[in-house]
């Protein structure tokens, strides 16, 4: 390979035009690299930490609270109830919140599963009669519900918008926060695997 023949005039010209062409191809090559990176990130995004907003409370113990029941119910909800239940879910909902209606059937379905962990409800800034008629009409998937009438406990939890769902581990620490509607996909791909890991 060391003794290349002297390039002819035509070959030089050809090489020159090839080099020139390479410059024009460069942008699309750079673009391909960027597109691959974005695709990889997006893939990870949907698998691992969809809508995983950092919460001030993630990896912190539950804040102490003791809430009265929703109108027509007997027991309210306190942090001790959740701690006693082991690995559990806390869902922040309200009757006035449209997206909560969207995710409600998912919770109804989940609560029926034999291996479901306890699901607690935090009824956020709701009119008492609206909350109870909402639950009566659409069904009640929660083990216990606390009525956070003025949103005080919501502030302690760093509630950002309703609905939100927290996962609490055996020791009573918040390990995960999901903001927004819980979809079937979120539940199957993010929430349930995490719960299985916490239980195991």
């Amino acid at each position: 390979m060391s003794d290349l023949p002297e390039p002819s005039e035509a070959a030089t010209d050809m090489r020159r035009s090839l080099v020139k062409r390479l410059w024009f191809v460069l942008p699309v090559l750079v673009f391909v690299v960027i597109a691959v990176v974005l695709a990889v990130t997006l893939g990870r995004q949907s698998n691992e930490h969809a809508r995983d907003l950092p919460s001030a409370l993630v990896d912190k113990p539950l804040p102490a609270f003791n809430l009265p029941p929703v109108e027509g119910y007997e027991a309210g909800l306190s942090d001790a109830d959740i701690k006693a239940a082991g690995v559990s879910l806390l869902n922040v909902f309200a009757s006035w919140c449209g997206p909560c209606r969207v995710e409600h059937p998912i919770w109804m379905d989940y609560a029926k599963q034999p291996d479901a962990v306890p699901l607690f409800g935090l009824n956020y800034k709701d009119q008492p009669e609206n909350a109870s008629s909402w639950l009566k009409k659409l069904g009640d998937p929660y083990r216990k519900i606390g009525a956070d009438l003025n949103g005080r406990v919501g502030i302690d939890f760093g509630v950002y918008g309703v609905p939100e769902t927290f996962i609490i581990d055996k020791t009573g620490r918040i390990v995960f926060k999901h903001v927004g509607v819980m979809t079937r996909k979120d539940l199957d791909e993010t929430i349930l695997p995490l719960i299985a890991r916490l239980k195991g």
Partner: protein
Amino acid sequence: MSAELGNYALILALVMAIAQGILPLVGAARRNDNLMALAAPTVIGQFVFISMAFACLMYAYVVSDFSVMNVAANSHSDKPLLYKFTAVWGNHEGSMVLWVWILSVYGLAVAAFGRNLPPALKARALSIQGLISVGFLLFSIGTSNPFERLDPAPINGNDLNPLLQDPGLAFHPPLLYFGYVGLSMPFSFAIAALIEGRVDPAWARWVRPWTLVSWMALTAGITLGSWWAYYELGWGGFWFWDPVENASFMPWLMATALLHSALVAEKRDALKSWTVLLAILAFSLSLLGTFLVRSGVLTSVHSFASDPARGAYILGFLIFVGGGSLALYAWRAPSLKAGGTFKPISREGALLFNNLLLVVGCATVFVGELYPIVLDAINGAKVSVGPPFYEKTFVPLMAPLLLVAAAGPMLAWKRADWPGVVQRLRLAFVALAAVIALVYALHGGPIGPAIGLGIAAWLFTGAAVEFADRIKLFRAPMRESLTRLAGLPRSAFGTTLAHMGMAVLVVGSVAGTAWRTETIAVMRPGDQAELAGYTVILNTIGESKGPNYTAQIAEMRLERDGELRDLMYPEKRFYPVQGTQTTEAAIRTTWFADFYIALGDPDEASGGIGVRLYHNPFVPWIWIGASMLVLGGGFSLSDRRLRVGAPARRRVAKTQAVSASESSNA
């Protein structure tokens, strides 16, 4: 009913867009006039149907129809009427409808004003517009339908994010969209030119006004967003290098570059394939911005309800548009004939230098933007790239850019007499040296801000001298100067105004960043705090109630040397429906500095309230400078040489030349 009607209208618009995207393109390839002529009616049809859909959505918001999921999720019956309107685009689904609507407005503009365009170029460009529209309409109907119903309907809605309930932010998104979407025009013309295999000055003359319009809209939109962040977020800052800010800043940098390179393409028939590339990149970056904001790849205060499915769609579309057009570029651009040649020291040279710096600047922002994402993709590490990165990379790149911006307009085309230009810049040299020395003497400390202000003085003086030379101010009798002034093309005013505005903006951002002082205090009524020679006394703290919020309002006396300067009323608002708080800072401006007060949280131990005070020198100059940029753009746009259709006779000749060359190509 309105929701179903809107949905139906969107679908009809999609049908129109498909026709617009295919038929004229086929017509142009086959030289079939009837097919090409279909562009105009399909554009009009699309505009009508999208307008209908938009009106239906707006109606649902105004009457608070909570059976529409989008309305329930983003509105509330107590919300003021203005924000019922603006909530239409304050959310992902509605903003996509606004996006396609703006796209259809631009299409309509081409159909209406483009009578003098070569018919094949016009048909192709409109077809490309149609294809873009198909992409976005499919996205809207398929993954983010704003008309989805909710059954049973909730009693009331979830309200709009209170941060967005603000007059500044109400018009920030539409302006930005006008900019983003406007960049689709140069893009469509670039693709059409690549298909035809020719770029001529007439092409550049067509592309420039569209670029100018979108550049002005982007400038105004970004400024409005920055202004909003300044007074609403309560941090006292105006630019945070937040990923979403960057997402709009990158297309702005590209549009600025395109604006200048199109000038060379128009006047000198040079830098043609470069201009085409910039047009492609500018629009691709707009799409990239959309992808980053809506896919959830970046989390930020601005994030719309993000969803990986939407992200996947936009990424696919971005790959189709960006990858497809760059591949077309790689294939066709080498055959574009190179035009006029020039020496390095010439106006073309200066503009090319400007372009290179803007593109490199854009690339550094791009790296800062994507580095955390790339790192996350490689090893899952979470890092964030903040202002220090940009201050070390982007800011120094802008220094030579601004230096050359003063000289550029003085250089002659093709080959410039550089000693003469240096001679004409001597006043600017004096200003540069004087400001650096003065600032350094007065403030000492790091030399960076002094250099920044010196460069601003250089640019301002250079622009002023160039303008004075044009009208022979002080060198000819006043009467002659005035005649010359009246005879100047408006684009000359535009250039001068925009370059001066840039200088003013640089002063604001450099001084505002470097000399800002702040203090944080916990105050009870009667307490006082000192900052920058002012004394602030907290008079009272009271409660007040707005339509959909409650607020804490403080009354503060601002005094200097024992004299009352102003009473200021900073507010902290609490929106119960969403359970969020917003800060309404009180700002007193002297045009040379802002005194800025933001209320913090109550301090329970002492019974006082946290107060943050900022003294921000020269920050108002940022808004003044940015307004000058937009105004300068407006002057250029109103130039009759740029006004569509003005050089009609010449263009007819060009049209014949184009069709002649086309038939020889075929």
